[in-house]
């Protein structure tokens, strides 16, 4: 059995699940101590779970890759999942690397290596889908490295700069 705290639109629920085999479609979970019957489309693969029914009714759902939101036909819900059995809380990332959040074309560079920058300060402008997007510093520090140059095409996740 797994114990998971899930916060949906600001409200937190403690969910206990014993995940059945991949071919199961009907089982029971416990939410805040209450038993809830659940039917699912499929547990076989990460994209297979696109329909869930409980005693309240059915939901067709789209689950975010990063599990930051779920969409049902009623709308989008902000989600935060905390595994209560992973006791060692990992430290916050202090990664100063700035990655391309979207593939695109660098149109302007606003800082130089060695510049002191503040968190939130624009570093460069990345054009994608005919829109300009400002890429900002994730933290205070110095521009250690700048891989970007104006006119260069970058792909998703390319490290554009490093703030140290």
């Amino acid at each position, binding site marked *: 059995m797994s114990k998971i705290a899930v916060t949906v639109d600001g409200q937190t629920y403690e969910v206990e699940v014993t995940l059945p085999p991949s071919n199961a479609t009907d089982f029971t979970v416990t939410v805040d101590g209450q038993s809830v019957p659940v039917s699912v489309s499929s547990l076989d693969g990460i994209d297979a779970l696109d329909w869930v029914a409980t005693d309240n009714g059915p939901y*067709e759902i789209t689950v975010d890759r990063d599990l930051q939101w779920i969409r049902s036909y009623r709308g989008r819900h902000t989600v935060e999942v905390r595994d209560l059995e992973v006791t060692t809380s990992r430290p916050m990332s202090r990664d100063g690397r700035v990655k391309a959040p979207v*593939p695109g074309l660098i149109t302007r560079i606003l800082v130089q290596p060695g510049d002191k920058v503040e968190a939130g300060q624009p570093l460069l402008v990345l054009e994608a889908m005919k*829109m300009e997007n400002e890429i900002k510093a994730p933290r205070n520090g110095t521009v250690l490295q700048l891989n970007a140059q104006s006119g260069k095409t970058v792909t998703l996740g390319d490290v554009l700069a490093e703030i140290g």
Partner: protein
Amino acid sequence: MFKKVLIANRGEIALRIIRTCRDMGITTVALYEESDRGSLHVRLADQCHQLTTPGGYTNGEAVLQIAREMEAEAIHPGYGFLAERAEFIEACEAANIAFIGPPAKLVADLACKVDVMAAAEKAGFKTPPHSAGSYGEGEMDAIQAEADRIGYPVLIKSCTGGRGRGARLVRTKEHLADAVRHSQTESYTVYGDKHIYLEHALLPARQLGVQVIGDQQGNIIHLGEREGSIQVGNQKIVEEAPAPFLSQEQREKLWDTAVQIARLFNYQNAGTVEFIMDEAGEFYFTEIKPRLQIEHPTTEMISGVDIVQQQIRVAAGEPLGMTQDDIKLRGWSILCRISAEDPWNNFLPSPGRLTAYRLPAGPNVRVDTYAYRGCDIPVHYDPLLAMMVVWGGNREEAVRRAQRAMSEFSIAGVQTTVPLLQRILDDPDFVSGQYTTAFAHRELVGNLANDSDRRDMAVAAAIAYLVRNRAGRPVTPSRVRSGWHQDARRLPV
């Protein structure tokens, strides 16, 4: 009638034009850049030709050359790209290939929005206070002087632009210079031209456009008005026809004015006469959009007229097949633009592969899209993914149908504006129809989830988390996730 038409565009508009051509028995030629090879407009055309020259869709010379080679008798430009390039239209005319849109001279006449407003003023029509001219780079002093003269808030608009691209609202003087620079840059990025002009911004206001069509014989009719006041980042996102809360008298005055202005310029083919209406119900002419507009399907729904079909007929020299009296506007239509952008992350563009893509359907629901499950949404183009249009016998029915249909979308692989649109459609001000351009500047109310929904989403999230762990694709707990997503910001308006 033409036997073969080349469509010099991509995306949902190319497909929409191809469909009407094929419905008319006309052979279609699609163009595509390499990154659009898999797009639906290429798949559903009779013939296709790759664009390999620099500029791609915007390279008029190459497009015309292909039209000649493929023996197309006419070119439909869609919107954007070559739609409003007078010199391209002239080249078509010289090559004896029909341009499906207004003639070159008309497009040239309408290009300078400031001159157009001046001409309308001279003929006795009201316009909003605006700059005396348009301005390129390095004319900041003149711009500042004009802004002072017409008074803040001021709207900076791209001379070439459409779809709100390049537009910036400036409330106070100190923000003007920055906004002008951004506007000119964006205008250049999208349209290749830095010229902008200024308009005094009426706030709050409503944005209205009247669809007109004129033939080469000089007949001009209108198909009623559209309301486009709900905008995000100066781009219309939800539109409707007719406009809510106009009296029949106001409506008729608006239509008459639009047709008179169209006549003033001897308007030909399909176009939109645009107005801004203040709180007192007074309306001011702002410009004529000399092209097919993205939102034209909402007018098609209430008029029963296939606007693209009329464009093609008129361009082929046929007179309009109908008089104003034949046009009976019926019911209500709502149109929503679905884009591959993340509304919860400052509309960060979201290209990628569509791993799920199921569209709403049913009576009186139409979805125009170039995408399909498994296709890649390219990074090179505008993020518009789909347009959903619904019709209802009255506004209430149309609103409910729009809510229902929007909830049916199932899209995965890219972020989209669907959840935002759902909240807009659920917002009490939208539902009542009592909204203005101020709509987008406040929190959306929408239907908030109830307790049982939240509990069930918690269950779904817990199961999804465990399934992913078991599949060896664990989800990084959100508290340790790198923050870079939040560090990208669409340039501020």
